[in-house]
């Protein structure tokens, strides 16, 4: 066998192994969560809030955390979209390509992306103290939106950068302003990618524990106000795993399963929506 053939085969082998590592990680996580969580999962888990003594193995469920997580990730995503979209459209439609501000903004996103979520939690907590806020759904939403903002913006930026120059020109040539071009043409062309960015960010937000521990707090009731604490699934998992009681630990896995299923549903829905919106895309 020639040297080039060996190279080719070694590299093929590497690719297969790497792919297998990724796939088996996914399968193993899903399997662990399902095998350990499924037996403990019952209707009460998703329809009831924790009753007295729930963490000692008595009756109840994690509806408080399911609803809390959906509110929190949903609110944070909305907040992050409204900021990201504006920033990203500014970077791509208004700022010049060689603009220092644009380059610095993109660099900032990369730095912010790398900051651990506990730091966002601590930062959120500092701000709360400054404004005299208590742990609340609102504070949690703000902390999580800060966490997912760079992820969302960077992902949106990448897709909008792919929009061909000629499409901008086509719109400008018809007498459209930059604003009209940005929202009616560019955002539309990039819609599938924007949607993916939003859902990736949502997934990251709903799964994060560290940013909400100080900011959203935890409660056994379903949140009914922005200014009250809210429970979240990652923290519910953490607390249940932390008890010495085996049944409660199993419920932690059941909660993890619920969280995984939520994220799975969102991924599937996003795939379907992305397909639906791709039909107008100009190549």
């Amino acid at each position, binding site marked *: 066998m020639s040297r080039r053939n060996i190279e080719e085969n070694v590299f093929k082998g590497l690719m297969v192994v790497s792919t297998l590592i990724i796939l088996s990680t996914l399968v193993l996580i899903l399997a662990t969560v399902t095998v350990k969580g499924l037996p403990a999962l019952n209707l009460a888990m998703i329809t009831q809030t924790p009753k007295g003594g729930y963490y000692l193995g008595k009756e109840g469920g994690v509806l408080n955390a399911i609803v809390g997580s959906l509110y929190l990730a949903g609110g944070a995503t909305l907040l992050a979209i409204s900021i990201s979209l504006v920033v990203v459209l500014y970077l791509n439609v208004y700022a*010049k*390509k*060689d603009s220092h501000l644009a380059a610095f903004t993109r660099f900032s996103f990369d730095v912010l992306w790398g900051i651990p979520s506990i730091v966002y939690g601590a930062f959120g907590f500092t701000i709360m103290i400054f404004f005299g806020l208590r742990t609340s759904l609102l504070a949690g939403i703000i902390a999580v939106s800060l966490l997912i903002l760079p992820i969302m913006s960077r992902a949106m930026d990448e897709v909008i950068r792919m929009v*061909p120059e*000629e*499409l*901008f*020109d*086509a*719109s*400008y*040539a*018809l*007498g*459209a*302003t930059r604003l*009209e071009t940005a929202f*009616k*043409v560019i955002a*539309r*062309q990039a*819609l599938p990618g924007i949607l993916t960015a939003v859902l990736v960010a949502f997934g990251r937000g709903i799964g994060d524990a560290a940013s909400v521990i100080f900011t959203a707090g935890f409660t056994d009731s379903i949140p009914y106000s922005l200014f009250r604490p809210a429970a979240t699934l990652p923290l519910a998992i953490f607390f249940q795993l932390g008890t010495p009681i085996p049944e409660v630990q199993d419920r932690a896995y059941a909660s993890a399963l619920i969280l995984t299923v939520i994220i799975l549903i969102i991924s599937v829905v996003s795939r379907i929506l992305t397909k639906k919106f791709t*039909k*107008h*895309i*100009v*190549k």
Partner: protein
Amino acid sequence: MEFKTHISVQNLDVFYGKERALKDITVDIPDKKITVIIGPSGCGKTTLLKSFNRLVDSMDEVKVSGKVFLDGENIFDPKVEITHIRKKMGLLSQKPFPLPMSIYDNVAYGPRIHGIKEKKELERIVEHYLKQASLWDEVKDRLYAPASRLSLGQQQRLCLARGLAVEPEIILGDEPTSALDPKSSQRIEQRFLELKREYTIVIVTHILRQAMRLADYVVFLYLGELIEHGPAEDILVDPKEEMTKEYIKGIIS
């Protein structure tokens, strides 16, 4: 032949960074005629065309000096509203770029941004201009289908309809048939010959035969310089400048 001037270019210079893309261009573009800009690649044809609707503005590090008068108004005057200038000109690019929306919305896009809201009126406009671009019969049953599903030739005619729908005075074409098959190119050329009764048309092309078929007036550029311009029968048949002669004979390209 008598020409009435529509666009008057005076001492136009365009720089990309340090590179001088257009050198002191002065030329009058005649009204309701087809003007064809010819010259070898990289000679500044497209830059000249894109100066007319100020699309050169959106390029990076571009510097423009000189004047371009349109209806007596210098379009590079800082007081001029750029959208107003662009509304007066429809643009066909090398490769058709439909907007990411339906066929109907593509044509209605221009009129909508310029303030037409009424549905009946928009429907009338869409039908009228799709007919003018001779696309109506092919798309009338699927007006709400994505424009991206049309063939390239159809897309270019859609872009023509889209441009006409803002009621411009001028049609600019940047090698508008270069991505099309011969049949589609022929249809576009046919449209131009009919449209010149109502519109001033300026086309950039590197196809000499196309210039011969279409041109009333010819502008020959070489490396950013205006070498020669005049009525088509003079320039294409009996050019004065050595450089033009060589280009037309195919020695330089």
